[in-house]
C-alpha cells in the first residue's frame, strides 16, 4: 500500500492537520444531523480525508466497506433515451461519484442519482427514516446547467439525502449552490505541519530522516501534503539510508517544462517555436492538463525575467488561459502564448541591448 493511503487518518480524532476543522465537523454532526456541505481548497490539502473521516464518524466502520460499481443508467429525457455508464463508489450509507465523467449529460446523472437515493431511504428498527450521503467530487467541473438543476433538487430531497460537495475552486460553483451549503475551507497545510507529518511517517516506518532532506521535500511539495508523502516514499525507494544531499526527484513533466522554458529563453524564432510545439504536444498526449502546463511554464519563465516584463507576461498568460477554457484545442492557445512570449521577450532584448 502506498504511504499516502496507509497513513491516511481514518477518524476525525486522528487527523494531524486541520485539527480545528475536524473538531468543528465533530460538533456539527454531534446532534445527529448535518447540512449540505461544500469542501473547497487546493489539491492535496486533505479534503477527501476529512470527508471520509466524517462519514466514518457518522456511520461507524461500515462506511468504510465500499464497493466499486460500474452501473449502466438509463435516462429518459422527453422522447429521447440516454444511456450512460458511470462508476460509483458506494457503501451502505453513501454514494460517491464524479459527475463530470458524464460529460455534457451530467445534469441528468445528478438528478437521477439523487432521486434514486430518495426512493431507497434507509429505515431503522423503529421505522424512522434516515438519510444517505451523496459525495460529489469535482463540482467545479460540473456544467452550469447541472449546477442550476442542483439548486432545487437539494432543497426538495433534503430529507432523504445530504450532499457533500468537494471542489478545488469555490469560484466555479454558482452562488445559489454555495449559499445552500455550509462552506468549509480547507487550506493547504503549512510547511511545519507537513514536516510534522513526514517525521511522523518516518518514525512509524523506522526510518532515519535527516532534517535537511525533510526540509527540501517540504519545500518542493508546494504545501501539497499528498505530494510530500509520495516524494518521501520515492526517496525511500531511490536509496536508503537517506543522505543529507540526496536529490529530491521532481516529476518528469515538470522537468520537461523547465526544459521547454529554457528552449524559449535561449532562442526566439519560428524554428524554435516549432520545436517547442512538438514538446507541448508530447505533454498533452501524456494527459497533462493544459492549464497546468501553462501555469508551470509561466512560473518557470518568471524565474528569469525582469520585474518590468513580469506584469506583461502574467497578463498574457491569464489572457490565453481564459481563451483556452473557451476554446476547444488546447495546443493553439499554448502555442499562442509561447509565440507571444517570444515576441515580447525579443523586443525587450532588442530594446535593452540594442
Amino acid at each position, binding site marked *: 500500500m502506498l504511504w499516502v493511503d496507509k497513513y491516511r487518518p481514518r477518524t476525525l480524532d486522528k487527523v494531524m492537520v486541520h485539527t480545528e476543522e475536524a473538531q468543528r465537523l465533530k460538533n456539527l454532526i454531534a446532534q445527529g444531523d448535518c447540512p449540505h456541505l461544500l469542501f473547497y481548497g487546493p489539491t492535496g490539502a486533505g479534503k477527501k480525508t476529512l470527508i471520509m473521516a466524517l462519514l466514518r464518524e457518522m456511520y461507524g466502520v461500515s462506511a468504510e466497506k465500499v464497493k466499486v460499481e460500474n452501473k449502466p443508467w438509463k435516462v429518459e429525457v422527453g422522447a429521447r433515451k440516454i444511456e450512460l455508464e458511470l462508476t460509483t463508489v458506494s457503501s451502505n450509507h453513501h454514494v460517491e461519484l464524479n459527475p463530470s465523467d458524464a460529460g455534457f449529460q451530467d445534469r441528468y446523472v445528478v438528478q437521477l442519482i439523487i432521486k434514486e437515493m430518495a426512493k431507497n431511504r434507509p429505515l431503522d428498527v423503529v421505522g424512522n427514516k434516515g438519510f444517505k450521503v451523496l459525495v460529489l467530487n469535482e463540482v467545479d467541473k460540473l456544467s452550469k446547467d447541472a449546477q*442550476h438543476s*442542483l439548486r432545487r433538487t437539494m432543497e*426538495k430531497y433534503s430529507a432523504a439525502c445530504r450532499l457533500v460537495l468537494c471542489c478545488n475552486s469555490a469560484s466555479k460553483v454558482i452562488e445559489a449552490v454555495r*449559499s445552500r451549503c455550509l462552506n468549509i475551507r480547507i487550506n493547504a497545510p503549512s510547511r511545519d505541519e507537513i514536516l510534522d507529518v513526514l517525521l511522523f511517517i518516518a518514525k512509524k516506518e523506522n526510518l532515519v530522516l535527516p532534517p535537511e532532506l525533510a526540509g527540501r521535500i517540504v519545500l518542493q511539495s508546494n504545501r501539497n501534503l499528498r505530494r510530500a508523502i509520495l516524494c518521501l516514499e520515492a526517496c525511500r525507494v531511490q536509496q536508503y539510508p537517506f543522505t543529507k544531499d540526496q536529490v529530491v526527484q521532481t516529476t518528469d513533466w515538470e522537468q520537461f517544462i523547465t526544459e521547454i522554458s529554457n528552449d524559449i529563453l535561449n532562442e526566439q524564432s519560428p524554428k524554435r517555436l516549432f520545436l517547442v510545439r512538438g514538446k507541448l504536444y508530447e505533454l498533452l498526449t501524456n494527459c497533462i492538463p493544459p492549464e497546468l502546463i501553462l501555469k508551470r511554464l509561466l512560473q518557470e519563465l518568471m524565474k528569469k525575467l525582469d520585474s518590468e516584463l513580469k506584469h506583461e507576461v502574467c497578463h498574457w498568460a491569464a489572457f490565453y488561459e481564459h481563451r483556452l477554457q473557451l476554446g476547444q484545442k488546447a495546443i493553439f492557445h499554448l502555442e499562442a502564448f509561447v509565440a507571444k512570449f517570444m515576441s*515580447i521577450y525579443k523586443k525587450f532584448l532588442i530594446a535593452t541591448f540594442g
Partner: protein
Amino acid sequence: MAPLLRTTQQWVEKYRPRKVQDVAHQEEVVRTLVNTLETGNLPHLLFYGPPGTGKTTTALAIAHQLFGPELYKSRVLELNASDDRGISIVRTKIKDFAAVAVGSGISGYPCPPFKIIILDEADSMTEDAQNALRRTMETYSKVTRFCFICNYISRIIEPLASRCAKFRFKPLHEDIMLGRIQYICQEEGLDLDQEALSTLSRVSEGDLRRAITYLQSAARMYGSSISSDNIIGVSGIVPDDVLKRLVQACKSGEFDLAHTEVTEIIAEGHPVSQIFSQLFDYVIQSTEMSDEQKARVCERLAEADKCLIDGADEYLQLIDVASNTMRALSNVTQECTYF
C-alpha cells in the same frame, strides 16, 4: 446495525412565513395580494428581485392561503429549474395542467375558480420555452394564473412580462433583517452580541435566506454563543487582513511581493471571486486613490470576473489583477511596452 441519522428541519424552512401578511418589507406586494384574498381576483404575477427577499415564500404563501391544504395539490403546479422545462414540457405538462377545468371550492378558503402555475427561477427557461407559453397564457387565462419568479427581469421576454403584473422585491433593510434574526435567536436560544449581529447583516447583503443559513451553520458548529469571527468563518468571506496584505503588496510596487501574496491566498484556498468582490469594495471606498486609478483597477476586475465565470484559472486571473492594480497604483501606463 449502524446508527440511523435523523434529519432536523432547516431553519430557512422552519421560519418561512406561512401567510402573505407575514412577509417582511414588501408592502406593495403584500397589499395587492391581501386584496386578492378578499376579492378572489388575481392577475398573472411576475416577481423579481435579488435572492433571499421572499419571492418564493410569497408565491407559496398565497397559493396555500387561497386553496388550503386539500385543494393545493390539484390547483397548484410548481415547476422550477431542477425540473426539465424545455419547450416539450411547456407544450405538454403545463398546457395539460392549464387546460383542466376547476372543480368547486371548499369552505374556509377563498378558492377562486382558477389554478395557479408557479414557475420558479423562470429566468433560466429558454427563450423558446417562454415563447411557447405566450399563447397558453392567454387561451387558458379563464382557469389558470401564472406566477413567474426570477432574479433578472431582463431575462424574461417582453411579451410575457407585459402580460403580468410586475412586482419588484427590495433587498431587506438592515433593521428588518436584524429583527427577524433576533426573533430566531430568541426561539432557538442563541446568544449573539451586537458586533456579531452587524457582521451577520453585513456579510449577507440583504439576503435573509443567506443570513439564516449562516446563523444555523454557526450555531451547529460553534454552539449557542456566536461571535463575529465565527460568522466570518462559516460565511466563507475573506478576512480583512488577507485583503489588506494583498493591497499593501500592490502598493509596494514590487512584483515578487505581490506574487508571494497571491500564491499564499491560493494555497489558503480563499475563493478568488470573493477576493475580487471585496477588493472592489475596498477600491471604491478608498480615499487615497484617484478616480483614474480606481477606474483602471475596476475595469480589469470586471474582465477578470467574467473570465472566472468562463472557467479560467483562479491563480492566473488573480495575479493579473494584482499586477494591474500595482501598475495603476504606481501610475505606470497600462499599455504593454513590448507588445
